[in-house]
C-alpha cells in the first residue's frame, strides 16, 4: 500500500471519547502527516471506511496536514457546531438541510476558487455550502421476491403492487423511521413536496405493517436475509457499495422521479485552519477527476451530465426552501401525519 509508510495513528471510540464534549461522537480518527505542520479538524457524518481513501489521498497531496476526523450523527453534528460552538474547520455532512441552516444562520465561511466555480449552480449555495457527491434515494427489491424482470419502477406501480398483493408483502416492506433518521426525514419531506403519491404510498406501506429502520445498512441486511422484500428510499451509493460486495438485491432508480442527496462541505465561521479547509474543499469539489477515489469510497462525484441524461434525477435544491422542513412546528405536523399514515392509527 502506497500509504503504508505514513504512521496513521487511529484512535477509535464508540462513545464519549472526549468527556468535555456534550455532543455524541461515534468515532474519531487521527491521520498524522509524515511532516506535520498543521492540523485540519473535520467533523463528518460519513463513516471512516467510506471517507478514509479520500482523506489519505488528500494527505498524499498535502503531506504537512494532519487530519483529525470526528464522526457524529447529523443531529449530533448540528448540536456540536450550531449550539455548542465546537471548533471544527470543516463540516462534511449528508444532511443538506442542516448544512443549509448552518450557512443561513451564519456558521459558514464564504470561499471561491476555480474549483468551486467549476461546480454546477445547483451544487453550491452562497459559496458556503459545496456539494461533492450526488447520491440518489433508491428502491431496493430483494432478488428472492422479484426474481424476474417484472418489478415496479415507479411509485404508482409500487402502490398498485402493494394494494393488489397485500398478503405477499405484509411485514416485508421497510423504510426509514423518519423520527430518528435525518436522511429519512429529508427524503420523506422531499417526496411529499414533489408528489402527493408519497402519502398514498405511505398509507399502502402502513397497511402492510411496514417495518421502520434507523439506517440503510440494517435495511439492506434484512433484504439480504429475506426479512424484507422491498426497502424504500435507501441511500443508493451505500446500496451499490453493499451490492458490489455481497449482492442479493436489485437497485431500482424510480422512473417518475428520484431525489438526489448532495453530500456537502462547509467551512465553519470559527475555523482555525481556514487554508487547509479550503484546500480540502477544492480537493472534494474536483472529486470527479479522481475515479479511483470514487470507486474506493463508493461516493459518486457531482456529475451534471448524468443528470441531463436522466431527467427523473432531481438533485435536492440547496437553499432556504430546505429550512421549511426544519421548522419545529412543520416538523411536528409532518411527523404526526407520517405516523398517522404509517401506523394506520
Amino acid at each position: 500500500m502506497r500509504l503504508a509508510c505514513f504512521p496513521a495513528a487511529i484512535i477509535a471510540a464508540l462513545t464519549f471519547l472526549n468527556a468535555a464534549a456534550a455532543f455524541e461522537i461515534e468515532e474519531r480518527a487521527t491521520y498524522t502527516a509524515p511532516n506535520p505542520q498543521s492540523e485540519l479538524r473535520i467533523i463528518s457524518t460519513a463513516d471512516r471506511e467510506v471517507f478514509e481513501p479520500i482523506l489519505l489521498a488528500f494527505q498524499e497531496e498535502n503531506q504537512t496536514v494532519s487530519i483529525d476526523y470526528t464522526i457524529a450523527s447529523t443531529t449530533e453534528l448540528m448540536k456540536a457546531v450550531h449550539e455548542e460552538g465546537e471548533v471544527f474547520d470543516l463540516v462534511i455532512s449528508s444532511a443538506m438541510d442542516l448544512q443549509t441552516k448552518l450557512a443561513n444562520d451564519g456558521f459558514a465561511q464564504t470561499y471561491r476558487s476555480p474549483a468551486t466555480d467549476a461546480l454546477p449552480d445547483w451544487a453550491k449555495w452562497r459559496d458556503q455550502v459545496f456539494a461533492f457527491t450526488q447520491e440518489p434515494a433508491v428502491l431496493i427489491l430483494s432478488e428472492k421476491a422479484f426474481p424476474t424482470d417484472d418489478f415496479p419502477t415507479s411509485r404508482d406501480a409500487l402502490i398498485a403492487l402493494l394494494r393488489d398483493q397485500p398478503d405477499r408483502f405484509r411485514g416485508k416492506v421497510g423504510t426509514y423511521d423518519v423520527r430518528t433518521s435525518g436522511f429519512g426525514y429529508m427524503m420523506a419531506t422531499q417526496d411529499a413536496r414533489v408528489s402527493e403519491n408519497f402519502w398514498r404510498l405511505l398509507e399502502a406501506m402502513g397497511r402492510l405493517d411496514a417495518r421502520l429502520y434507523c439506517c440503510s445498512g440494517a435495511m439492506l441486511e434484512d433484504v439480504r436475509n429475506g426479512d424484507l422484500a422491498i426497502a424504500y428510499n435507501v441511500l443508493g451509493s451505500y446500496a451499490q457499495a453493499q451490492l458490489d460486495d455481497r449482492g442479493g438485491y436489485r437497485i431500482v432508480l424510480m422512473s417518475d422521479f428520484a431525489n438526489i442527496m448532495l453530500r456537502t462541505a462547509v467551512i465553519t465561521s470559527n475555523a482555525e485552519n481556514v487554508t487547509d479547509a479550503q484546500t480540502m474543499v477544492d480537493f472534494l469539489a474536483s472529486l470527479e477527476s479522481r475515479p479511483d477515489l470514487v470507486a474506493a469510497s463508493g461516493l459518486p462525484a457531482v456529475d451534471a451530465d448524468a443528470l441531463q441524461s436522466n431527467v427523473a434525477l432531481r438533485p435536492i435544491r440547496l437553499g432556504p426552501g430546505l429550512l421549511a422542513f426544519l421548522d419545529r412546528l412543520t416538523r411536528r405536523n409532518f411527523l404526526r401525519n407520517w405516523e398517522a399514515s404509517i401506523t394506520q392509527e
Partner: protein
Amino acid sequence: MTFPPLTRSIRTRLFLQLAAISALLSVALFLVVRGLAETAAEATQDGILAASATSIADALRSEDGEITLDLPYSALSMLGTTNDDRVFYKVEVNGETLTGYDDLPAPADPPTISQNTFATFDYRGDEVRMVSASRTVSASGVPSNVLISVAQTRLGLAAISQRISAIATGVGLVFFLVATALSLLAARSALRPLKEMTAAVTRRGPADLRPLAIQPPTELEPFVAALNTFIARLRASLLRSEDLIAEAAHRVRTPLATVRAKAEVTHRKLNKPEHKQTMREMIRAIDESSRSAGQLLDHAMVTFRTDSLATEAIDMGELVRETVARLEPAADLKDATIRCTIPKQPPHFTGDRILLQSAIQNILDNAIKYSPDDSDIAVTLTAADTIRLDVTDQGRGFGDSDTDTLKTRFSRGANVDDIVGSGLGLTIADEVARAHGGTLNITRNEGANGACVSLVFPLQ
C-alpha cells in the same frame, strides 16, 4: 474686467460651459438611473418578501384549539430564486413565538391586516429587509392575532446595486463624452460665421474698400453694418485726401509753368554769368517741383483708375516703343542711349493703357535720372511664361535698400541724396502692376553696376 487667457476665447468658454452643463446632466442621469433601478430592485425584494409572508399566513390554521402551521416549502424557496441571501422568519401568536427565529426583532411599525410593513436593520451580522404581516386566526372560537415576519439579507440587492451603479456610471460617462463632443462641434459651428467673416475681411486687397457683401448671422448684422459704415467713412476720407493732393498738385503745376516761362525769359535777358547760373538753378528747381506735382497727379490718377480698371486690348510692343520715344529727349540730354528689344510678334495684353504707360514711363524716367552720362539703358520685352518688361540701367543701383520698402510711397534709395525725386515713381509702377495681377521686381543688374526693374504680368 480681465479674463485669464484661456477664457478669452469665446469657443473655449462656450465649450467649457456646455461641458459643465453636460457633466451636471450626466451626474443627474447617473443618480436618476441608479435611484430608479435600486428602487425597482428593492421593490422586487419587497414583493417577494410580501409574497412569502402571505404564503405563510395562508398556511395558518387551527388544530385541536391551537394555531398551527405547515411552513410551505415555496414560501422560503421563492426567496432563494433570485439570490443566495440568508432567510429568517418568525411567527408570533398574541406576542408568543409560535415558530421561527426567536430573536428576530418585532417590527417597529406594527402591520395591520390590510397593510404589511417593511423595515431594514442589522441582524446576525448582516443588513436585512423584513416584511411583517398580520392575520387574525380563530382557535376554538377565540380570535388570535398572528404576526408573520420574514426577513432576508440584502447581499443580492447590494450586488444588483453595484451592477446598476456600474451601468449607470457607464451610461453617465458615455452621455458626458457624447455631449462634450457635440458641444465641441456646436461651439465650432456657432463660431463658423465669425471665422468666415474674418476670412472675408482678411482676403481683401489693401485697396479694397468696398462694403462687405457677406450675409452675416442676425447677431452679427449690427457689427457688419458698423464695419461697413466705417469702411465707407474710411473710403470717403481717403478719396478726399487723394482729391486734395491732386487738386493741390494741379494748382501748383500751372503757376509753376508760368514761373518757369518767366524765368526762361529772364535768363535770356541776364548778362552776368553768376546771375545766369542762379537763374538756371531756379529753373531746375522749378522743373523738379513740377515733376513731383506731375507724379502726385499720376499717383492720384492711378489710385482712381485702379478702382475702376479699364480693359482694352493693348499691343505691348507698340506701347513700349511709344513710351520710349516720348522719353528719348530726356535721355539725349544725358547722352544716354535707350536700346529697345521687342519681339517681332509682340504679346497682346488686356489692361488699362494709360496706367501701363504711366508705369513704364516712371520706370524709364527713374532709369534715365540715375544713369550716368553716356551710358546705355536696355529695355527688353519678352513673352514666354509671362509678359516681362525689363528696364536695366548702368546707374548706381539701389544700394542696400530693401526692395520692398522702395515700392512704398515717398521712399527712396539710400544713395540718392544728390538727385531730386519724390519717391513716387516705383510706387506708381508697383500699384499698376498689382492692379493688373502682376508684380514689380527690383533686382541688381547682373554683372555690372545698376539696377534692373521688371514689370511681370501673367499671360492672359
